[in-house]
């Protein structure tokens, strides 16, 4: 299959999955993260179902880590890659942003078609964040 077409189909299915699971609704995501409040555990089910599905299909597909190309995620698909301060600090910073907004990157991009100002502001700032990282860490 043409790799652009398969990428498009993957993005579309991924997005529909996020929409159905209501991961695209920051109000719902924050209710999941609010363990001390009126906790909504359903997003844990989303993750569990996704992990089981991918885990099962991955066994059928059988792609060794070396075959998976991804400049920065290579370190995640390789089981023995080391844990460094970048991983911890980056993930911690991401979590703070996620907790403040209820948006992680996928749902934020999907929310663009809602026409809400908050969606544009978040996505614009997120791309500035990507750009700042690329700028500071270029030539790595």
């Amino acid at each position, binding site marked *: 299959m043409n790799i652009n077409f398969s990428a498009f189909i993957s993005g579309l299915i991924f997005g*529909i999955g996020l929409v159905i699971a209501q991961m695209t609704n920051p*109000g719902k995501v924050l209710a999941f993260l609010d363990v001390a409040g009126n906790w909504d555990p359903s997003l844990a089910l989303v993750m569990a179902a996704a992990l089981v599905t991918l885990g099962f299909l991955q066994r059928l597909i059988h792609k060794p880590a070396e075959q998976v190309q991804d400049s920065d995620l290579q370190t995640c698909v390789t089981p023995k890659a080391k844990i460094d301060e970048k991983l911890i600090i980056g993930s911690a910073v991401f979590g703070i942003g996620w907790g403040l*907004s209820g948006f992680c990157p996928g749902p934020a991009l999907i929310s663009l078609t809602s026409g809400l100002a908050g969606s544009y502001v978040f996505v614009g700032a997120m791309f*500035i964040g990507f750009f700042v990282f690329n700028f500071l860490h270029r030539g790595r």
Partner: protein
Amino acid sequence: MTYLTVVSALGGGVLIGLAAAVLLFFNNRTAGISGIAAGILPPWQQGGGWRLWFLAGLIISAPFWKLLGGSVMIQIDAPLVVLALAGLLVGYGTRLGGGCTSGHGICGNARLSVRSIVATLTFMTTAGITVFLVRHVA
């Protein structure tokens, strides 16, 4: 949780896992959305056109779902200033940490990558603490 919530959560999760498997099978790629999105900015790599196609599919998914008769609920409560700060933190943090909820949370964890498990526990914890501080302390 109502019955419908459980069904939609499980159904949505299955589709997310399926989508990641499609990208892995046909493109040899990890469905890490922060990495795919950041990859459309310079410095560009050769052969990155598929990223735009993935993002196009992702972005039209909500209107497409509505067209099929589904509903899309998006409720944003945070003020714009907070959203701007949050966006910066999410953009920079996901790049520094090498992944987000999709790359680490789904793909990396499904491969039982220790890095991804540590990343997921870290961002879940700081997100939970942040929500606690915003909702119950501030």
